[in-house]
């Protein structure tokens, strides 16, 4: 498996009200083809920004991001994104929202078949005509994921798409995304603050510090799929990641007292 995404010396600054804030600092890591990589960090550490940079949705960056050895310079069509909020078009039904993911060059005859295939894949049969407002949060995310996948991108970027779901739905969605990952052989990059989710889903976890986000550690998860959440090995990896966050905060609490 070759390297599909390379992130080299990437920095990011935002200017808000004339004040320059450093968001990301010296980020370096690679993603191999077919790999499931999670980026974990507390809120505001710039992990979503990093994902948008990979997708070519951020205007200015320092450093370099390469996809298949080509520098990202504007929207990267190899990457499709499932956003934190499902971002469905409220005036379109499920069928048409998923169809929106297809390029207009796809002929009509193929469209219908593709849309049906992906409706099937995310388990929304029978909901073709439902409007977004009639769907639960989990179902909306399924539509969003189907819409991202239908154009058959090499890379699926997941920006905390399960963050707003209840625990049971979240576990279900995690299983589904793994199923799709295996079936479709995609490279997936997930941003999350849910440590268990990161261990459960990924081959590799990139741990970011608080703002400005720096890489604290890159952890390879050497567990066979399907991973068993209650197992000792699983617990070992979650603990490894917890340590990276809570050693720091314990110090902070000491100071506060």
């Amino acid at each position, binding site marked *: 498996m070759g390297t599909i995404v390379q992130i080299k010396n990437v920095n990011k600054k935002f200017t808000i009200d004339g004040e320059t804030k450093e968001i990301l600092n010296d980020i370096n890591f690679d993603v191999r083809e077919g790999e499931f990589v999670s980026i974990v960090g507390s809120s505001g550490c710039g992990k979503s920004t990093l994902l948008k940079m990979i*997708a070519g*949705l951020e205007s200015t960056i320092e450093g370099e991001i390469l996809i298949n050895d080509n520098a990202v310079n504007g*929207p990267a*069509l190899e*990457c*499709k*994104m499932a*956003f934190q*909020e499902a*971002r469905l*078009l*409220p*005036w379109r039904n499920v069928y048409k929202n998923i169809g*929106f*993911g297809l*390029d*207009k060059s796809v002929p009509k005859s193929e469209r219908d078949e593709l849309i049906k295939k992906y409706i099937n894949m995310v388990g929304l049969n029978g909901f073709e005509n439902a*409007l*977004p*407002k009639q769907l639960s949060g989990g179902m909306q995310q399924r539509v969003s994921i189907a*819409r991202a996948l239908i*154009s058959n991108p090499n890379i699926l970027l997941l920006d905390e798409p399960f963050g707003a779901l209840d625990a049971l739905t979240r576990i279900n969605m995690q299983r589904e995304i793994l199923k799709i990952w295996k079936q479709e052989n995609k490279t997936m990059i997930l941003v999350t603050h849910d440590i268990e989710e990161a261990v459960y889903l990924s081959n590799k976890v990139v741990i970011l510090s608080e703002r400005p986000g720096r890489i604290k550690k890159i952890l390879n998860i050497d567990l066979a799929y399907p991973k068993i959440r209650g197992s000792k090995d699983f617990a070992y990896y979650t603990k490894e990641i917890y340590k990276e966050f809570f050693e720091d905060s314990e110090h902070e609490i000491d100071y506060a007292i």
Partner: protein
Amino acid sequence: MLSANASKNRILDLLTFSFFPIALILLWFLSTKFGWVKASIIPAPKTVKESLSYLLEKNIFVEDALCSLSRILKGFALGASVGIVLGVLVGMLPVVDNLTKVFIALFRPVPIIALIPLFILWLGIGEESKVMVIALGTFWALLINTIDGIKGVDKKLIELGINLGKSKKEIVKSIVFPAAFPSIYTGIRIGITSSIGFVITAEMIAASAGVGYRIMYARNMAMPGILFVGIIEIGLFGLVVDLLVLKLQKYLFRYR
């Protein structure tokens, strides 16, 4: 029990809803019948009915209504199309936004009624000046609401369009316009309702036909019956238009 309560509520709703119209009509009948008010101030329902029959017989009623209606439609079509086109340009192009900012800030607060004499001076007392008044009123409503609608489109949806590899044209067509449409529709609603007011005002100042002209004529001729026909006609027309526009709104935006 529940359904009994529900039907009870519906009856109560109907009673409270129709209380004022019924009371008003009753009061009208009684006050004119027993001479509580002078007939020259408030004509009896019978007088109004006779005036209506007279206007219908002479075909004046329909002619006036069509005349005012055609002015509304012409003015509305002109004002709305210019307002929407300019609104889209202002909403999407910062250059046009900047170019028009002072113009909008300066002229928008001017009441349209204050411009009627100017329009008459420029365009004469023919159709053009009245159509212009309505067009201008509609123009502002559509311009402001279109700008708001376009500028208010969720940036996250546009980002989605970019991520999906959509062209600028596709983003405008599939995201910006549908997302801005409810706001544009609000403009249409305000525009069409206020058009009724504008056409009557314009006709009262200078015209030789139309509902506004007829009301002014009735006042000059001291014919309160005809005057009342005009007022009730405007009220009913406004009511029907508003109902239709609301019905259409419910249908168009049923996804919300």
